[in-house]
């Protein structure tokens, strides 16, 4: 797979992401028309597929993928289209078999993200009360799995020690918010 595309997604290179998004957008809408997907739905599906490929880029799943970026993106798209068709068919009779003939792209199955538990929703509520830089710090550390050194370089902090102490301050604040919700709501 094109490594610079994967890197763009991993490193939030918004300029390049925008270009990639635009490059395949119209073709994808055309592709989903073959399956009789409504245009409004096809944009949703395209964005959903884009989000999924980014998650795979971040988690490292794309590292060993041999197909091109586009094939992979459309493969996920196809999976989502099938899901959508199933949804359509539960509302009205719809012959899914008709569409299995298309062999342009191999379907790529993705995990559907699970809904947050109550506890997680609560944490999310307090997380949003943190400042932008704290939110960014925690996202980079825990979701993206960057080391303190990497964060220092990326975000322009003096050194990893500064990152370490800022991160622990952010976590402390978050824990305090959870402990003393009455003062803050």
């Amino acid at each position, binding site marked *: 797979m094109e490594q610079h595309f994967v890197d763009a997604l991993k490193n939030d290179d918004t300029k390049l992401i925008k270009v990639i998004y635009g490059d395949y957008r119209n073709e994808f809408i055309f592709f989903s028309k073959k399956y009789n997907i409504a245009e409004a739905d096809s944009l949703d599906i395209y*964005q959903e597929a884009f*989000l999924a490929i980014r998650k795979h880029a971040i988690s490292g799943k794309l590292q060993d993928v041999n197909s091109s970026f586009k094939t992979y993106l459309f493969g996920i798209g196809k999976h989502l289209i099938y899901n959508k068709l199933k949804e359509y068919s539960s509302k009205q009779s719809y012959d899914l078999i008709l569409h299995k003939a298309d062999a342009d792209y191999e379907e790529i199955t993705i995990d559907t*993200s699970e809904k947050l538990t109550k506890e*997680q929703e609560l*944490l999310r509520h307090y*997380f949003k*009360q943190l400042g932008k*830089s704290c939110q960014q710090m925690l996202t980079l550390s825990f979701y993206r*799995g*960057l080391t303190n050194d990497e964060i220092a370089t990326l975000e322009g902090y003096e050194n990893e020690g500064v990152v370490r102490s800022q991160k622990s301050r952010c976590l402390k604040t978050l824990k305090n918010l959870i402990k003393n919700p009455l003062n803050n709501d």
Partner: protein
Amino acid sequence: MTNETLIEKYFSKRLTTDESLEFQKLYDTNPNFKQEVDFLKTVRTVTETEDDAQFKKQLESYESEYIPEEKSTTKTWLKPLIAAAGLILIMFSINFFMTSNSNEEKLFSTYFEPSKNVTSPIVRSADHETILNNAFIAYDEQNYKQAIALFESSYQTSKQSELLFYEGNSLLALGDTNLAIEKFKEHLKYSDILTHRSHWYLALAYLKIKQTDKAKHELNALLDSGETFKKAEATSLLKKLN
């Protein structure tokens, strides 16, 4: 290895096999360790959800640039007007590119981006209602007018020299270039961890008011200071100015 390092390595997926075993053992036997790790796992899930939501918004924002097909049935009488407007636009842009004066302006907007807040993580809660915290909140939200007033007032009481740096950045972002220059110059009189970075923003401010020589001087000062901040950018900008 401390537990803290072990946890950090766990989340950056860098544990060796031995460390994994040690991690698992601690997780199974030490309730405090388990509690901390479980908390951080929840943080991971939450940050992932939030990050996805942000990215989704970003993608949606791209859509505003695509015009739905139905709307493209423009009224016929509009067409000559559009053509005329296009022609005028082309003439203007030729004019724009021919005047070399705007070169500095272009370089400025290419290189300038207000500094991130690397000084004080902000907290949104009632018991953190300090002026400084509010200043950084306003700054983060690009509400620079308010930020300037708050930084100024916080600086008057605390004399924390780094605040001059953020005030300068806010002024520069608002286009109040001359005042920004004053602030950065004042900041350069002090020595704090952001001092050298002021050379970079001062250079950009000079560039904006077309004082190229002074800009070059500041860029050289930044490079000579041994600071790694914006080093590559400063080098490439310097090349373009020479």
